[in-house]
């Protein structure tokens, strides 16, 4: 069983989950998820009709990439809860980094569970510092 054995409150982890996001990856996600909203894949519709500067990623692509990072950290079978708010759009060209930190450790059904606070940040050539695009939490059972 994969997973974390020992974590400490305040411990932080950072993973880059995509670099220079390509429109093609957004198309892949549309096809696999079944969400064909043209705002994500149809540049003509999105710029001329909907009035955005370009297509943008599905929130669920960002959540999916973030979820993979969290699952890799805690072991996919140990994930108990995962929830997010989408706070800003993710654009083609963005590089996404997932920052997670151990917010608390508690007992659930007699087993130790770690709560992580999760923040996914987009960086692009246009913004050096980056901007938060998604924030949330994950609960994971700890290995004993």
């Amino acid at each position, binding site marked *: 069983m994969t997973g974390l054995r020992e974590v400490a409150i305040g411990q932080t982890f950072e993973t880059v*989950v*995509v670099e220079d996001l390509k429109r093609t*990856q957004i198309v*892949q*996600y549309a*096809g*696999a*998820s*079944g*969400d*064909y*909203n*043209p*705002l994500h894949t*149809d540049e*003509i*519709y999105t710029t*001329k*009709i*909907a009035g955005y500067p370009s297509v943008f990623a*599905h*929130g*669920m*692509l960002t*959540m*999916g*990439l973030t*979820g*993979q990072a*969290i*699952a890799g950290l805690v072991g*996919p*079978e140990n*994930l*108990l*809860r*995962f*929830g*997010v*708010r*989408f706070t800003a759009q993710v654009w083609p060209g963005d590089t996404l980094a997932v920052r997670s930190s151990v917010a608390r450790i508690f007992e659930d059904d007699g087993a130790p569970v770690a709560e992580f606070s999760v923040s996914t940040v987009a960086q692009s050539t246009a913004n050096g510092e980056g901007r938060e695009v998604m924030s949330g939490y994950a609960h994971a059972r700890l290995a004993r």
Partner: protein
Amino acid sequence: MAAGRFPVEAGHVLAFGRALGLDQGLPRIGDVAPPTFAIASAQFDPHYPLRPRPGGAWHGSGGDAGLVTERAGGLHGEQHFVYHRPVRVGDVMVGTTRPGEEWEKHGRSGRLRFREQITEFRDEAGELVVTARSVSVQREAS
């Protein structure tokens, strides 16, 4: 999200994983699916609105740039999953969606309407596997 039968198929999990940047072989029966895989139940929802249908109207570009629709204004605001157990390749789940709470906020750019939807996914034994809660945000003229 899905209402109806949702088989967790290896090829589907493979394609979904690739879209998330994974470079893996075909998953095997029993492998754990990515944490957000339940959202792909949209593929099995016969009434999912964000998929073009043969002969149906579609708001994306073709010969022209497309159509303004109400649907275009709704954005995904929040998504939450509770895992009662992991979703595994080979599971056959049934999703049942019900409306949750609705609320409004008045922001700088007008009135925002939030709508919650809750989908319970159960396995063939009727046991809960995943509970998904999504919140959509629609901007409305104030």
